């Protein structure tokens, strides 16, 4: 009663809002199923992370399980496996950056130099194929080829008079196998974004460079590469933001008792500790730690990309 004018104003704008909402009832009905999906399968699990601070027992549920504070996190950081997982993660990440990352760039530059359009398109068609194969297929084919039991690679070794190598059970071969499979599956697909960026280059630049006597390598170095520089930086930053996403589905397939000490990463550890050994709370805590670090890294990467003068990703 004290301020009738403002309350009628809010009433009026409230009814405006209601009108706008009611006008679009049909649209809200359309959004509803998707919204429910995100709520149930994305947001409920986030709230479910409370079990990381509980001693969760399935029969007690979220509400009746005991609270234990940061006990699971303390356990994680004091576990000797923690250092192993951390170093495995960092090594696989570095391999991704140093070995895999340049491959699509080089491949895109090579494809861009091809003048026979038909040949170029053919090679593109071929190198994109593995991307659409599941990791199970990629790893299966590798295993069939690398097997000591009449796998082609080992047969070739024998034919050359060398000894057979047990690639699949030897921990030394885990990392090379991992990175080669990533290159096989993703390098071709990875060229698409670079090739798209290259199409923006003005062909006259090449002609001018040639007039000045620049060879093909110099043209690539001084014209093509600078043109895709910002794409490279953005993708590199994104990759760094994704340190912890090393391809769980992939590594899970490669992992066995013999290569665990080089192949175990956070995700696989969560799977083993949680679903195999039933330590729900402990493994939820590990997952939480991983997701949180991942979020912070992506924010930093995005901030860096913006500082770099690019548009940012999110």
């Amino acid at each position, binding site marked *: 009663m004290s301020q009738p004018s403002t309350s009628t104003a809010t009433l009026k704008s409230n009814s405006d809002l209601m009108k706008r909402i009611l006008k679009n009832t049909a649209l809200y009905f359309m*959004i509803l*199923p998707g919204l429910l999906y995100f709520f149930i399968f994305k947001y409920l699990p986030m709230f479910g992370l409370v079990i990381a601070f509980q001693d969760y027992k399935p029969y007690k549920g979220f509400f009746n399980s005991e609270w234990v504070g940061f006990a699971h996190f303390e356990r994680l950081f004091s576990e000797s496996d923690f250092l192993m997982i951390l170093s495995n993660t960092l090594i696989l990440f570095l391999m991704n950056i140093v070995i895999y990352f340049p491959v699509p760039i080089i491949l895109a530059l090579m494809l861009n130099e091809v003048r026979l359009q038909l040949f170029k398109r053919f090679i593109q068609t071929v190198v994109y194929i593995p991307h*659409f194969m599941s990791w199970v297929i990629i790893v299966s084919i590798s295993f069939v080829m690398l097997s000591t039991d009449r796998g082609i690679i080992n047969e070739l070794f024998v034919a050359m008079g060398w000894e057979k190598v047990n690639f699949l059970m030897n921990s030394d071969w885990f990392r090379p196998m991992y990175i080669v499979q990533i290159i*096989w599956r993703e390098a071709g697909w990875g060229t698409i974004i670079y090739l798209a960026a290259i199409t923006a280059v003005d062909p006259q630049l090449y002609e001018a460079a040639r007039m000045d006597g620049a060879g093909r390598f110099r043209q690539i170095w001084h014209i093509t590469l600078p043109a895709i520089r910002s794409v490279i930086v953005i993708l590199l930053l994104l990759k760094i933001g994704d340190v912890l996403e090393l391809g769980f589905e992939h590594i899970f397939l490669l992992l066995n008792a013999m290569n665990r000490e080089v192949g175990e990463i956070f995700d696989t550890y969560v799977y083993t500790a949680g679903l195999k050994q039933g330590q729900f709370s402990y493994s939820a805590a590990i997952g939480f730690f991983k997701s949180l670090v991942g979020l912070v890294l992506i924010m930093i990467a995005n901030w860096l990309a913006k500082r770099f003068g690019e548009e940012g990703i999110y």
Partner: protein
Amino acid sequence: MTYDKSWGSKIFDSVNIILLSIIGLVTLIPFVYVFAGSFTTVAELAEKQFVIIPTQFTFEAYRYIFSTNTVSRAMGVSVGVTLAGTLFSLILTILMAYGLSKRDLVGRRLIMFLVIFTMLFNGGLIPSFIIVKELGLIDTYAALIIPSALSAFNLIIMRNFFQNLPEGLEESAKIDGAGSWNILLRIVIPLSMPVIATISLFYAVGYWNTYFQAVMYINDVTKWPIQVILRQIVILASALTGDTSDFGGDYVAPPEQGIKMAVIVIATVPILVVYPFLQKHFTKGAMLGSIKG
């Protein structure tokens, strides 16, 4: 544009083409090797190291595989899950994307934020597993579809496409008294067939390639999709992986090379069949995807 005809440039071109041909070959050879091997007799596989064209064409391996119904049943599961899942995902995606493409929708920005946030942070494996379990989805085909029914990425691609459709068409339909459902069905969807085709293929490939969800949510061996069977037959058997607990009592001796190859071929062929269609659309999709959400 005239081309550089100097010797250096010609050598560059030749070397480049040779290297690219080698790269193409190296990419393809594993597939060809497995494909040829699956049609080769056991004797020939044992005798020669590398068979590209078998001297004696045989369906032995395939006959063996289809002598029990494990693989055919798994193929049935995969086809069913892929078809049902793609349809379900497509409906959810189109509906939500259309709603979110309307600029005057109250709460649109908040919902978009909530969607994008799921790309940056997630509850992780264990809480998701508990939710699926509490919903009673364990050991149902729905567990292979519903928990991954909507991809935020595909949703954003679709929404951006809808947003860029000319508004005039919808306006005139509205004046004629058409409601949102009618506009969506009669105008928007027919105009959006290219993006719908792209997104369907992305979803279909995703469903076909799914294996981990089945490992997590399906204990009943008779409900396994082909990817899980492939993992059992080739990967777990080849490496005698430490994690054989999944096997339960079903452990079988590692099958012959040719049989493994035939199972790989069976799981691969459907993707190769749709590949030409995929190829027509995916570059566009990949580019759309790289656009800011």
